[in-house]
């Protein structure tokens, strides 16, 4: 009788070990750890790729001249800074022989609606200028605005004639910045 009881007990213990520890551990905590290891390995791969990409981008950026980077930043600055634009336009008008009589700011009409404008990476506003001066002065002023280091679009203008050679001008200039 004892000869059969001990092997039976061994079998019961073996089954208990298998179903009580081996199986739940393998499908439970071991599987979870394997999943975490896979995620960590994947993240490490991504980090390695990121490092390579960062080096590539750094090399590409270093290949751009510092002056060109500065010009690019001036072209599309990080902030609205419309005051400096107004100062620049006033200075340009003076050099061109044009007299600026008023400058107003208006929200730029957003293509695609307000939501699209809010999501856009670029912001824009319109400056509405009124000026008087000769035709040549106005042409010189327009040419200066078009070739401004900061990107300025003349989106509308109106010229009113006179008999004195001094005309009235209304001008809408759109300026942009990177949000």
């Amino acid at each position, binding site marked *: 009788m004892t*000869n059969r009881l*001990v092997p039976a007990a061994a*079998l019961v213990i073996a089954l208990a070990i298998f179903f009580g520890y081996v199986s739940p551990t393998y499908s439970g905590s071991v599987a979870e*750890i394997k999943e975490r290891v896979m995620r960590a390995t994947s993240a*490490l791969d991504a980090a390695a790729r990121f490092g390579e990409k960062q080096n590539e981008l750094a090399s590409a950026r270093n290949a751009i001249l510092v002056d060109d980077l500065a010009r690019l930043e001036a072209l599309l600055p990080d902030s609205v800074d419309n005051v400096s634009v107004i100062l620049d336009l006033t200075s340009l008008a003076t050099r061109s022989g044009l007299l600026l009589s008023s400058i107003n700011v208006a929200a730029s009409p957003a293509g695609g609606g307000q939501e699209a404008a809010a999501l856009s990476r670029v912001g824009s506003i319109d400056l509405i200028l009124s000026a008087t001066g000769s035709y040549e002065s106005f042409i010189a002023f327009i040419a200066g605005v*078009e070739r401004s280091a900061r990107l300025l679009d003349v989106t509308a203008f109106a010229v009113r004639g006179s008999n004195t050679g001094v005309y009235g001008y209304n001008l809408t200039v759109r300026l942009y910045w990177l949000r």
Partner: protein
Amino acid sequence: MAVPPSVPTSFVPRTTPPSVRRGVFDFGGAFAFIGYGALALALLMAAGIFAYEWYLESVEGGARKELQEAQSAIDAATVESFVRLNDRLIEGKRIIERHPMTSAVFDLVEKLTPASVRLASLSLSFTDARIGIVSAKGTASSFNALAALSAALGRDGRIKDAVFSDISVEQGGVSFTLSAATDLALTAFVATALLPTSAPEEPTAPLTP
């Protein structure tokens, strides 16, 4: 002759030893083999799982440590600067492609307007599709002068859909209102606006009332 006592007096066959019995299955031994074998296997698997779990934890710990080092090596400011530069390049290109050269309109109007036509006002605005809408009011010395302007606009083609309206004969000439649209190429930020055009029939004059 007497038989010695050590000599068997009769033949008694010996019984066959158990070890040489054939055809009898030892159930107890087999059961013991299975039981102990299963126990040994279970213990072995338990030890293997324990060791594997420990190994995976150590691998995970190493990976986490490497990941933390990799993350700490990432400079958020550098990444931000790359993103900003990328945005600036893309958006700058996009805006430049739409950048209107309005002075080209003046150049063209100057070239196409005969000296016998005076413009009293001129306005231009752009639609979302970058089409320039031109509107002008002026006076021509005669119908022929007005026709010359109309023909010049038609030949050039960069100021399209020119419609003359409100035409009336007044003292000193023919007054009119002009509405037209500009070609995209005229105001595009390329040198196309500076390409030579066909000369008007009459001498040109700047925008003068």
